[in-house]
């Protein structure tokens, strides 16, 4: 099991270069992909998120760790699929139509990815058709929408209404975020959750998918 601790340690150090080789090594020791995922990659990222929340480390350090985690994921992904291990969950995310603010959304996407979720980032200025299409095609568990403008946040309601019409609303948890949004706005438009920052966005997804 030492090797798994080593993987976790490399992720904490934020070294994307060393993680793939260690992952291969673990596989050659007959450790299952699932154990590598949970006891190595995810374990490393859990420590990172804890330290970030405590203010011990900063965003760029979290993101480089997430990159390291992703490098390991790439290797075990096909094996996980083969052994039919349920992935942690799939998130489709984007900034809504008319809105070009994407920094916050990017941070949320990267942290989710770093926590082991598969993330499909649709970028910014995303129309509802595209959200719907991707949610359906990817069988996403979570749809994340970001908006920083009072003029564009109302578009989220339209997206949720289209999801309802298409019969997809029950199949996907909708979460929203962005500086001018609030919990009560999320409730109003029937979103499943709101998070004021990236770390709580990860917790939110965890909670929603555990329900």
């Amino acid at each position, binding site marked *: 099991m030492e090797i798994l601790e080593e993987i976790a340690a490399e992720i904490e150090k934020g070294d994307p270069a060393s993680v793939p080789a260690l992952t291969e090594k673990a596989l050659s020791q007959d450790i299952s992909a699932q154990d590598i995922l949970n006891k190595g990659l995810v374990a490393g990222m859990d420590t990172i998120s804890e330290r970030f929340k405590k203010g011990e480390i900063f965003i760029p350090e979290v993101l480089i760790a997430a990159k390291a985690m992703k490098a390991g994921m790439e290797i075990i992904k096909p094996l996980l699929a083969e052994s039919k291990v349920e992935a942690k969950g799939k998130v489709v995310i984007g900034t809504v139509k008319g809105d070009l603010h994407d*920094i916050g959304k990017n941070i949320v996407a990267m942290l989710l990815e770093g926590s082991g979720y598969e993330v499909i980032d649709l970028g910014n200025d995303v129309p509802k058709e595209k959200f719907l299409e991707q949610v359906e095609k990817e069988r996403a568990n979570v749809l994340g929408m970001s908006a920083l403008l*009072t*003029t564009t946040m109302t578009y989220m309601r339209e997206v949720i209404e289209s999801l309802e019409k298409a019969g997809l609303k029950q199949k996907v948890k909708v979460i929203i975020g962005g500086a001018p949004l609030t919990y009560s706005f999320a409730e109003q438009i029937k979103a499943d959750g709101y998070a004021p920052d*990236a770390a709580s966005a990860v917790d939110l997804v965890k909670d929603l998918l555990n329900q």
Partner: protein
Amino acid sequence: MENKYRLNIPRLNVLARDQLEQIHLSTLEVLRRTGVAVKEPKAVEILKKGGCYVKAERVRFPSNLVERALRNTPPRIGMCDRSGQPAMFLEENNVYFGTGSDTPNVVDPYTGKRRTSVLKDIENVSRVVDFLDEISFVMCSGIASDVNPKISDVYHFEAMVNHTEKPIVFTAWNLENLKTIISLAEAVAGGEEKLKNSPFVALYTEPISPLTLAEESTQKLMFMAEKSLPVVFTPAVITGATGPVTLAGGLIQGNAEILAGYVLANLINEGAPFIYGGGVTSMDMATSTLCYASAEFMLATSALTDLARYYRLPMFSFAGCSDSNTYDQQASLEGALWTLLSSLNGGNLVHDVGYINNGLTTSFEQLVVSNDVIGLVRRICSGIEVNEETMTLDLIDEIGPGGEYLTSDHTLRHFKENWYPELISRVPYDRWEKEDKKDLGTKARDRAKYILENHTPQPLEKKLKAELRKIAESRDR
């Protein structure tokens, strides 16, 4: 126009001549080598005709083209008040302060609570700006949540122009709305020509970092250039997020974005009234909030002011803004540091006075306290007069060792030249304790309420006001 707006002490530089050259030449290099993505096809066409290298939406700028355009910079942009009288000469070392725009929240001056902003707040800010001596122009401050959001920008403009005579810097959601707002402004000025000759409005629009001229903001820039009306083109480079984390790199990237817009405006209309500025700020990597008052933001703004001077373009700068979530000690100290620095640098159109909560909330307290701070800073920037009357050699000799100056005619003649605050307190402890024991924040709120209850700005003519309502209404579908 009063001389008080002028910086009368040596301007503070943060970039040495050689550093300016390096940043300028590196900017040319970025524009030539990397280029800029231009998402508006008409702009791409104009830039291509003007001599840029174009491959799909990527536009690369030959350095001589940029240099040639920079020879046409307007050394002065004059802005008028609502009645067409000159109000601001945006030029080297003239410093004017104004509010910011579009905060989703406001601290209600009556309840002291933060809430979503409404149209009434924008009217109120405009009235307070109209009253305050040291605030020279208005931006809408809040974003109205109680009107049709598709045209809230039009409502903002109408609210401002109805409640202050001071020049207006405005934002517009898109080209259509911009056209509506300009038709309102033209109605007020008395026609297209009059607005062009005596503009009392400037548009705020921006490139999208890194290195992108987005479709809508570029359309707005082009429209203003065609109309020969003042336009502010200001990026938000967030170092480490939308630009390099080191300030020199951030400045070069931001400068490239601004100059790309400038070249475009200049190709459309040589000498177009283009206002330089920005927007090179940092992100707090612990909380991921965008800083409105970090040391790096202040330093980078000063550096951009140096660049503006180098190009002889007016500078859109920052002051009176804060990251604090409430109006408190932090808000006033950050606001004051900004005000001092932007003045020492000689920024011209200095905005965001009244912002707290990193641009998400407007505070009336911050606005009225800043008015005092600006007064104080203006006194510093007015410098020291050195002449026979002020050096007082005869007086010193006459009074000599051990005398006093309180009763001299010279003191009587000149003591009023010292600056006196309105809110900042200098009363002795005992009197303060006996009178009211109010701190600055409490006095600031009282002051804001006093202005709101007592100041009536010069209204627009009834007919004109109705005409504006009609134009705005026709868009409210």
